[in-house]
């Protein structure tokens, strides 16, 4: 085997290993939807989750106003939520909320949080709050909501 072929095989092998590792990593980045412990919701259809995150549904069934806690830009879980729930990139997302405020559909945009810990902690103390955290950051105190009947660990879960 020539040196050139050997080098090429090593490169291909390294690439395949890296791709497999990346794939495995992305498979573990499911995002859990977490609500305030007193919010009486266990399961949300994905369409309804979209309406809540897009500010089209602003009240829970018990009449309390929804407070959306949104991870600040550059977090992987925010990118996943923007892609799956909003179908937007960062620029579209910014324009979307400015437009909603301009049309007087909402009084304010989502509240920014700067870490999973902050999201997980605040959602337990702000009545009506909803947020998202990587599934690995869910704590025993977190009230995780099923999406279309599925938990983050289930096959077919929408936010993976």
């Amino acid at each position, binding site marked *: 085997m020539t040196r050139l072929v050997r080098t090429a095989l090593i490169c291909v092998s390294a690439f395949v290993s890296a791709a497999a590792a990346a794939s495995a990593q992305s498979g573990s980045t499911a995002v859990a939807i977490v609500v305030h412990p007193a919010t009486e919701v266990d399961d949300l259809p994905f369409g309804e989750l979209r309406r809540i995150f897009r500010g089209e*549904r602003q009240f829970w069934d018990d009449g309390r106003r929804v407070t959306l806690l949104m991870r600040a830009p550059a977090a992987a879980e925010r990118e996943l939520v923007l892609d799956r729930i909003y179908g937007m990139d960062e620029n579209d997302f910014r324009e979307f909320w400015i437009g909603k405020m301009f049309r007087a559909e909402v009084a304010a945009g989502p509240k920014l949080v700067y870490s999973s810990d902050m999201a997980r*902690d605040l959602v337990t*103390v702000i009545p009506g709050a909803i947020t998202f955290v990587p599934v690995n950051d869910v704590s025993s105190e977190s009230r995780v909501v099923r999406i279309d009947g599925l938990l983050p660990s289930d096959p077919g879960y929408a936010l993976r």
Partner: protein
Amino acid sequence: MSKSLRRALAALVLLGPSASAQVPQTGPTVQGFLFGDAIFTEADGTAPDGFQLGQIVGHANATLAERVLFFGEVSLTYRSGSYAVNMERAILRYDFSDALKVSVGRFHTPISFWNTAYHHGLWLQGSVARPEAVKFGTSFIPVHFVGAMVEGRLGNTPVHYMGGVGNGRSANGVGAQDGGDANRHRAVIVSASVQPASLLGFQVGGGLYLDRVPDSGTGATDERIWSGHAVWDRGPLDLVAEYIDVMHDPDDGASLGSSAYYLHGGVRLPGAWSAVTPYVRWEEIDVELADPVFGGAVPDYQAVVAGVRYDLDAPAALKAEYRREKVFSVDRDAFFVQASFAIPIGGQS
């Protein structure tokens, strides 16, 4: 993190500049935007061209209590040697639920998609100017509405409704009768739109507006406006189609029907060119020149618009636009370059 520390952090988040005060004990909070633009015009005809400062518009959203909201909008516009300050919108709203929100004040009339979606927010719209039928100062439709509105979502459906009663337009067709209804005949509006959650970016809707326009010297006129729109705004595509039909039935004379439509399309370029969005628009207005409400101020109009929008890495955009118009059968050309922006005041998402 201890419970007391969490509570303190929560209070800071809710009281901070991006807080919506969605717990009543945090008190009123205000969040807003400043919209503005500057424009260069090169046009046929005798109208002034060159550089102009466009409207500067201050927009504030205040949460007074968990269910009580206030929206205000004030514009600063150059007119005849000085700047005029106008109250564009002032809306006090009580949210009973997602299905029922009741408000009073001065609104953008929800009889046109473009009129409510963009209006003074030039940075939000894809082109330099609004379509002629809904442009600033037009009398083709009543762009503002003073009165009371109810709105909400019908159950778990994707249908959003609005209904309102108000003063209607003034005798000259342009104003919104902020000081009361001159002919004691209220205007009524109903509109609805559908935005399926499974089809993000798509919206279809329409509205109906009924009024009796006060006597401007030629007798009062019954007015009926209906409109319909379809929108796709997701990813690289921005498509808007709208049709507006206006029927005026004067006490002394035959009914007069006028109509307008526009088709607007923009496509954001892929990859490294994603800040660039070329766009085109075709628009047309067909009016009865004897219409007593328009009073000859709304022309038969056709235009083809072609332009390009460049989004800066901020809520700011540059737009260059060529417009070929036919106004009262006279052709004219115009070229515009506009810089527009939206400055958030008090928080970001």
